């Protein structure tokens, strides 16, 4: 019998330029994924994708939300922000390319590895952006063996 598939959604507010609070949302997501009992490597990949997506909001945007949609088949990380948007997504995907300002780079962030890292960890990555409005990023991690 096909029973209803459970879905859990977690939402977190993320504040731009809040480097002290940065990473808290991703930590919560990782904690929930561990407690659900996902394979450690799945938790690792989803955790890195969530962390990098959260950091992108902190570094580049004014504010945003980080969400995780969790089912036994798939984990989807969604980062939606109000911010400057990305003019050239293809360029932003290149390793080492970053538009982070110098003071952010001095803190050790903005090395241009965020999006490539998310791409490496995810089974699917979609980015929609409008310059002057904001960016929505969706990263999917498919659970094998289901």
């Amino acid at each position, binding site marked *: 019998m096909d*029973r209803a598939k459970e879905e*859990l959604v977690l939402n977190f507010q993320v504040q731009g330029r809040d480097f002290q609070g940065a990473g808290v949302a991703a930590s919560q997501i990782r904690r929930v994924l561990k407690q*659900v009992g996902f394979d450690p490597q799945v938790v690792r990949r989803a955790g890195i994708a969530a962390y990098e997506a959260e950091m992108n909001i902190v570094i580049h945007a004014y504010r945003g939300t980080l969400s995780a949609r969790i089912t036994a088949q798939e984990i989807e990380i969604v980062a939606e922000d109000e911010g400057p948007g990305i003019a050239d997504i293809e360029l932003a995907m290149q390793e080492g390319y970053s538009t982070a300002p110098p003071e952010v780079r001095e803190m050790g962030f903005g090395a241009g590895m965020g999006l490539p890292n998310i791409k490496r960890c995810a089974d699917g990555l979609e980015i929609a952006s409008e310059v002057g409005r904001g960016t929505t990023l969706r990263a999917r991690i498919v659970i094998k063996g289901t």
Partner: protein
Amino acid sequence: MEYFHSVRLDQEKCKGCTNCIKHCPTEAIRVREGKARIIQERCIDCGECIRICPNRAKIAVGDGLEKIRGYRYKVALPAPSIYAQFYPEVPVPRILGAFLALGFDAVFEVALAAEVVAAATKDFLLKHRGPRPLISPACPAVVSLIQVRFPALVDQIAPLETPMDAAARLARSKAVAEMGLRPEEVGTFFISPCPAKITAVRQPPTGLLSQVDGVLPLAAIYPDLLRASETAREVDPVAGPRGVGWGVSGGENASIGLNRLLHVDGIHHVINVLEGVEKGEVTDIDYIEAQACPGGCVGGALMVKNPFVARQALTRALASLELGPGYSPEELEARVAEGECQVAGRVKPRPALALDADLDNAIAKMKLLEDTLATLPGLDCGSCGSPNCRALAEDIVRGQAQDTDCVFRLRERVRILAEEVVELARKLPPSMAGK
């Protein structure tokens, strides 16, 4: 699976306060029926609860000195941190001599084995092509912490012997070679600063049999050692400062001697760093020396001296001329070339936190947990016997607690009931109404 734990509860002394539950790094303790209960699957024997308990109700059970009688040739393996418990009042050669006065036939310094382990670690790091940073296997509480709380990082634990295990192996082969004994006639006894080492010997994280035959907690034999040291004959130390330095945080990295090595001590600081590794934030580091106790092994939960005074004492011992020459660089090179200190067994995750084996069920429980958490006050007071509101929500979902265990929820229920009683008291039967 059954777990052995050295950390136990003294029922008589436990008053059911909430100090231990709030400090446990794996949320492994609950207060139920007025007594602390340790959840076996989660406990990592770090000894934080021993340190924090105001009633001395948490204890560590190791081996007694009488166990050494079961062996024909008994070798003491003192951890380098042990020196700091006696130094500078007792010079190092007499500290080592005290073990002979206590009934041991020989002393083999764990610090000497640490020199070989450091050389092997350096070699391994230079050749390693895989995920970084690697994590030191030396602190067993950290290894257990990774198994329980950071399962994705188990493969980053360096597959090398701990100085304790290497010392037991070297001491046994030395006794066999020099005394003409059979291996099983030699008893190797680690003198331990902490409860985690006791557990690591009884139940090694790699699943391989330990080379150590018994573990004596320092605190248990301290008075005997102190007395014995007064008249003990001197035994010349062989281990040099590089090995002995392992007793304090940073000493292991110093003896490995490469760049990009990070050291961290204190279990909550270790958690902080491991979370960084998990996030992918710690990228420019090759190796992490992580120790659960403050200041390193000198701050062990079964030590006697103040951890910071002990750290200072060991630092002074390192600078003194009382230590040995250590292994020569050529000797170390030869030992590493032979593949010494490499271990075949890998550490496996210990999935103690999952809500359910079935993912769908676990997600359903997780939703219930989040909903339950939203009804709790979020004060994390611990009065319910769980370490925080989230843990209580988890315990409720697991069927191990109920919402009225929360004093605020209980008070709310009493208020609603009281209002209903008042409401009912105002009502009159129709025959009385209007009079």
